[in-house]
């Protein structure tokens, strides 16, 4: 069960049961991205408010497994307040970490570090990255998606 416990660490279960920043505001200043994984039903929306190159607020919503929902919650806390460039760099390194690739260990991942164990569960990699992909899209797209 060691590997499993690495996967389902208390931090993850805490975010799963008590999601932060939940609920998408009806506010056009937010850029929104909705991603689903139809094969398993994971469904995440990320809404990001960027002002002057800084991520001012992140809101998230959706349904899915604990890994998916918790990672959206963790992300919404971690990236808030960062510049867009920094946030994207963290996101990129997070995805590398999940994929088991080399990543910048100097980055302060905070709660997101709890997801490192996912790399041993290849079938769950998507669950742990879907919210991050959605976030990237909200700050990379020139256009508002919805």
């Amino acid at each position, binding site marked *: *069960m060691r*590997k*499993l416990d690495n*996967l*389902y660490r208390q931090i993850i*279960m805490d975010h799963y049961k008590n999601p932060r920043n939940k609920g998408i505001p009806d506010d056009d200043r937010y850029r929104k991205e909705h991603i689903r994984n*139809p*094969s*398993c*039903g*994971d*469904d995440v929306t990320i809404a990001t408010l960027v002002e002057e190159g800084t991520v001012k607020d992140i809101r998230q919503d959706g*349904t*899915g*497994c*604990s*890994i*998916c929902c918790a990672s959206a919650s963790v992300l919404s806390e971690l990236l808030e307040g960062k510049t867009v460039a920094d946030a994207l760099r963290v996101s990129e390194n997070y995805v590398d970490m999940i994929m088991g690739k080399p990543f910048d260990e100097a980055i302060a991942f905070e709660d997101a570090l709890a997801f490192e164990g996912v790399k041993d*569960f290849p*079938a*769950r990699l998507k*669950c742990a990255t879907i919210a991050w992909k959605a976030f990237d899209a909200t700050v990379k797209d020139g256009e508002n998606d919805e």
Partner: protein
Amino acid sequence: MDLSRLRDDFPLLKRKHIRYFDTAATSLTPRPVVARMKDYYENLSANVHRGVYTLSHEATEQYEAARATIARFINAFPEECVFTRGASGALNMVALGLAEKIAEGDEIVVSELEHHSNFLPWLHLAKKRRAKLVFVPLTDEGRITTENFASVLTERTKIVALTHVSNVLGYTTPVEEITRLAREKEAYVVIDAAQSVPHIPVDVKRIGCDFLVFSSHKALGPTGLGVLYGKKERLEEMDPIEYGGDMVDLAEKDHATWQDPPIKFETGTPPIAEVLGFAEAVRYMERIGRAEIKRHGENLRAHTMEKLRAMEGVTIHNESTEGSLISFNIDGVHPHDAVTILDSEGFALRAGHHCAQPLMAWLSVPATLRASFYIYNTISECDGLVEAVGRARDYFLSP
């Protein structure tokens, strides 16, 4: 028959200490089936229907003999069995083949129990021809009954496309009665037997349906092969669906004529090794006996059901099923999470919508866990599964 011996025919069960409960997605493949294909590649390896030399002639003979074996398994004539890419491919062929018969306002009857492959081709056909897609109301349990079917059957019903055994709930549709009613209105009846052929005796003549489809890979056979059964008259009156080599009789620059069914519907080099392999799978099932296959799967399901039912924190979606599978959820635990725990102990089962999103909507769940039982599963594996489900529940739900 001593089924425990037969586990030796499935190397996967040994090599990975796998407890395989996902037969409804694809069955394991026994050694004799793999050996048959190996034999084809190593000792024959010739194309069919075209060559005059001995190897090619033998390939043709074996291919057609395999067709006869497979046809007999569902009580069809060989010329009524067309080989396709799979059940999905076969259903699309029927939908294309019947397209011309559908006019605006006609009705196509399906159900929310259908696998996407017996739903989306009809949704597409209905949209294209401005026909109406009509759903048989399901009972509270989620069943298709003759009564409920009768309540939607009208003079405008042109096609009835229903699953024989549900891949999520395991219920058996009363296809004989439904076919009888539908044929009275001269509607074409298409039966999706992907989940029935591996588990229960299927007799196309008794059912009386016009078309029936199934897949090899769910019934001990190889991937890459399905069967489209079509009543002789139907196949004869139907235009070809795909054009090209083999299915053609005379080909001129501006005109062509076709072979008779089934070749009329099998253009190109067929899945030769796969057909030979599937015939071997059919013989394998026949050796066990179809009654025995049914009994064994139902036993395991009943045994597991009883234990799961007694377990707190587990919701079962098909308590009354007569089939060989159980759909359930661990309350408060997403099926994905549950399956990861089970998988870490070697239990292979499915979490998802099982290609039946309308049914998930009907059940009001995003996804379920599904354990399906087959000849190679044992009571002790089932007991292990139940215990593992308990552990998965406790893992997530204990404070």
